[in-house]
């Protein structure tokens, strides 16, 4: 059991990385990966929301959706969006420091495709409560890893001599392609088990 959970975590984190393999959460990956410090905060906020989402999705899947499967998408998005809103208010009240650190990222990532993607993948694969939790944790850590890697490369590339044609998004995409290529090397990890 423990081993299986570990492989779910590792699989979501590096082997099938959310951003570099499934293309989930590309908006923050492109948008807020210019500085390492913001990338880390964005990653932390993502881990947090993903964990909440996983619990929500498990609850909906177990208690509500067997009776109304066609409401799956609508209920996922409504429940996740409102819960994040509530959590944001609670954090603001309880821990202003944490609120300042996560700040605007919390509401932003509610509409991030990684969140809904996690809920749907978890449902399609039939994960239970613990498995879903580890999947969310791995996915969030993987997102953070990809964000921080990208931010480090972009910080370094700022002083590099880049052809004017490639400046901006084209460079980011080609670097992301190389990163994705590198992460494909981890594919051997899962098949080894």
């Amino acid at each position, binding site marked *: 059991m423990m081993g299986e959970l570990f492989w779910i975590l590792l699989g979501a984190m590096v082997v099938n990385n959310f951003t*570099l*393999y*499934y*293309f*989930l959460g*590309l*908006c923050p990956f*492109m948008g807020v990966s210019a500085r390492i410090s913001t990338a880390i905060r964005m990653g932390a906020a993502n881990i947090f929301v993903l964990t909440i989402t996983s619990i929500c999705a498990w609850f909906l899947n177990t208690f509500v959706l067997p009776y109304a499967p*066609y409401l*799956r*998408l*609508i209920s996922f*998005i*409504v429940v996740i*969006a409102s819960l994040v809103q509530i959590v944001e208010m609670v954090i603001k009240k309880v821990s202003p420091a944490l609120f300042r650190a996560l700040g605007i990222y919390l509401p932003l990532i509610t*509409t*991030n*495709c990684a*969140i*809904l*993607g996690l809920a*749907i*993948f978890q449902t*399609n694969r039939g994960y239970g409560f613990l498995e879903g939790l580890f999947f969310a944790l791995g996915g969030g850590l993987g997102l953070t890893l990809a964000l921080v890697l990208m931010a480090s490369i972009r910080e370094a590339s700022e002083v590099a001599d880049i052809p*004017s*044609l*490639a400046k901006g*998004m*084209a*460079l*980011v*995409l*080609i670097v*992301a*392609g*190389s990163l*994705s*290529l590198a992460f*494909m090397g981890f594919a051997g990890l899962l098949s080894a088990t």
Partner: protein
Amino acid sequence: MKQTTPQQDFFRGIWRENPVLIQMLGLCPALAVTNTVENSLAMGIATFFVLTGSSLLVSLFRRWIPNEVRISTFILIIATFVTVADMGLEAIVPTVHKALGAFVALIVVNCMILSRQEAFAAKRPVGRSLLDAFGTGIGFVIALVMMGGVREVLGNGTFLGFSVFGSRFEPWVIFALPPGGFLTLGFWLLILNWFEKRRADRAKVRDWPDGVAEARAAA
């Protein structure tokens, strides 16, 4: 609110403000499911349907949607159409539906659709919103097929299932895999940047005689 003509509303989204290639919206489906032309077309048409339907509804109800909860309302409308598209695809083309997997459901969080509702459909009459949705939707399909064409030809040696290079071609598998998505879009952007730069340079040359006259006058 800037005044635009119906022609502008329609043609703007197709190329000049293409959602994927220029505005960089809706990247998740544009990269994830474009490994073959067939999948790209299916995803493009599904998104086109959702975009048109949501624009129509949002524009119809724009006077009754309260400003404070407009985003949630848009999302709900979009999610309804996505559910319809999801079930429709499953019924009409089950194999393609299987290949697209979770990404059909993920049309809900395609920021391109939400941005058209927020920026256009929520403020304009029905006819204009539909024109805008048609234009943007066609632009999205074009961008997806541009991605899918390159990736299928290089990654599989085929186009829409028909062999392009004959049997002696060794498929460049990486283009059908995730890294190929990033690289293909990156190279498309490079090519478009090059065209844009060339156009700007030519415009400069055209303006040059005036510049000479001004320089002479100043001297």
